[in-house]
């Protein structure tokens, strides 16, 4: 018999998982929404951020939360480099080109991680962040509170960047009509470069949190990319705040599936929801073009 406390605790765990999902998929959703590029190396950029934070902690004792800007910078730098060296040259061709290229980039990065950090599974452990707090019989760790806060701040920050800043608006205009944007004096190549790099930065922000709440390994990126893609479609292309809501729906739905049925149906719930949304509302829950 499931107790009421356990149900509430389970829902909370779904909310936490959902906000993590939103953060993990933000970069992919952003790049897909703006540039129509499905960045299959997104998961690996996120894992790169995780490794950076891991090593800063192990080598110099840097708190992983403080390491987030460095991790984000490294992943953003990798994204920038990838765009300048490879993607920029082949973007004008078929959309399939970018898909294949980012897939290859993902494989390259996974193998690079393997060489640099071996195949060992790493986890970022900071004792004070793992300590649970109890409120009315419900437990939550400081690390989880930190992760939720960072997710919300980053999602809202991106939303405001796109709607309030000059560069954000330039990126959106470029996404809507590239030729008109160029005629209006917007440097569309620069807008693309900045957008793809921001996608990398957003992935890099998620990496340290992934290492703290779960684990990182060279091959961990693939599952993240798949989950991020599912969530992007679920939320609807172009809806950044919608990612949080969609993430929470997915996270809580999965948790409730486990609580009331069996853990083996958890993934099934996600994919049934994905298919239902595609059938009933193909543009996603909050979908609209930017």
């Amino acid at each position, binding site marked *: 018999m499931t107790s009421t406390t356990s149900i509430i605790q*389970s829902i909370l765990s779904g909310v936490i*998982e959902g906000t993590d999902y939103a953060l993990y998929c933000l970069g992919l959703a952003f790049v897909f929404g703006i540039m129509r590029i499905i960045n299959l190396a997104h998961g690996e950029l996120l894992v790169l951020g995780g490794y950076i934070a891991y090593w800063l902690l192990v080598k110099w004792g840097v708190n992983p939360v403080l390491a987030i800007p460095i991790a984000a910078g490294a992943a953003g730098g990798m994204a920038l480099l990838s765009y300048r060296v490879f993607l920029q040259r082949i973007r004008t061709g078929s959309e399939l080109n970018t898909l294949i290229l980012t897939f290859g980039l993902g494989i390259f990065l996974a193998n690079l991680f*393997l060489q640099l950090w071996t195949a060992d599974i790493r986890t970022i452990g900071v*004792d004070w962040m793992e300590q*649970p707090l109890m409120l009315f019989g419900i*437990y939550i760790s400081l690390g989880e509170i930190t992760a939720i806060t960072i997710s919300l701040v980053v999602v809202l920050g991106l939303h405001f960047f796109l709607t309030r800043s000059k560069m954000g608006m330039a990126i959106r205009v470029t996404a809507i009509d590239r030729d008109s944007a160029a005629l209006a004096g917007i440097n569309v190549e620069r807008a693309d470069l900045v957008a793809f790099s921001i996608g990398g930065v957003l992935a890099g922000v998620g990496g340290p949190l992934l290492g703290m709440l779960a684990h990182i390994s060279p091959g961990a990126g693939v599952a993240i990319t798949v989950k991020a893609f599912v969530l992007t479609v679920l939320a609807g292309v172009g809806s950044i705040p919608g990612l949080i809501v969609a993430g929470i729906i997915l996270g809580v739905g999965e*948790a409730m599936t486990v609580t009331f049925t069996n*853990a083996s149906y958890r993934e099934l719930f996600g994919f049934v929801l994905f298919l239902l949304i595609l059938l009933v509302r193909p543009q996603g829950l909050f979908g609209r073009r930017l």
Partner: protein
Amino acid sequence: MTIRTVITLSVAFAVCLCLATAWAGPPIRLGAQAPQTGSLAKHGLEQIKGIRLAAEEFQKKYNTPVDLRVYDDESDGQKAVAAVEKLAGVDKVQGIVGGYGSHLVGPASEAAERYDTPYMITGAVDTKLSAKKYKNFFRLNFMPGYAAAQSGAMKDILGAKKVGILYNSVSATAEIAEYVKAQLTSAGIQVPVFEKFEKGTTNFKPILLKLKDAGCDVLLVEGYFPDYVGTIKDAKILKLPVKAYVGAWGIGTPEFTRELGPMSEYVYGTSVWEMGTAPKESKEEEAAFVADYKAKFNEEPSYIAMLGYLSGKFMLEAIHKGGGESGAYDPEKTRSVLRALDTMSPIGRVAFDEKGDPKYFVAVLFQTQKRNQVVIYPKDRSTGAVVYPAVPWGGK
């Protein structure tokens, strides 16, 4: 330099070359297939290190060169088949070792059988793998030995009343979970929670809460490294009120204690071998292996490295005794040597039954205490006393 000197030196060089070749003999071609990339890479890389060490030692001992060919199966079943096909069909190796994960080894062992090449695996424990009785199939460890250690310790050492079992959906962990559940139930121990979870699960709290509601004494997780990390972290946040946390394999590796630090304290795991658990007849071999491994790779060997080492050693010696370096290789001779094998090793007595399964394999169950693995079961191999009840997060 005169012409005569040049001719004399050339002849001397040619004679030396011929003598060196005759002295070394033709190489033994040994194939190794293991995940070097992908989700199982960690284990596969350790295996290969052990195999390389075995090849080096064999070369020194028998003065016979070993041509070791290593292929990465990328933690993928199809790639595992391709690797075995290439080793057996193209490289014409005389025996194959390695293989990790029952879902990879299953199809790969079929390929080895098709190419009639002896195949000794070390990291695939599903009992169904040997059901087809392939003549080339040999393995050093398998599932019933692990299940017996877990259920035996829970009954005889921990005195558990209610056990919650969570298991990864892959075939090996699903099978061991079923085995242990049956053994516990027949011993009068309740299993009120028996839940399968998918690979990649990161939120374990909803499942762990079921154990809390059911009042379980012991949490048993049949899974892999990421599953242990996830369950331990979530159990800590929930302050899960259990008396013991038991895992299957891969939980007591040096990496595990390094990564989890204090969170690895008091957890139980099964293993083929931990440092210091070799039977007295093999203590010397164990010490030599540990010293050589540390010297070569600058790290502590795990039980997977030990299995890799032993598989390489047994296969190379079987090829050698079967006339492998004479140029007239006959796989049946290698198989015959392996079938007749009955020897002590750091993992215990090694001999194979008619299906290629290990006749005498028994895993040990250990508890991590101050970052060391203290074997607590079976009692005759124990290296220390159990600390119970105790879990890293406090528990009951």
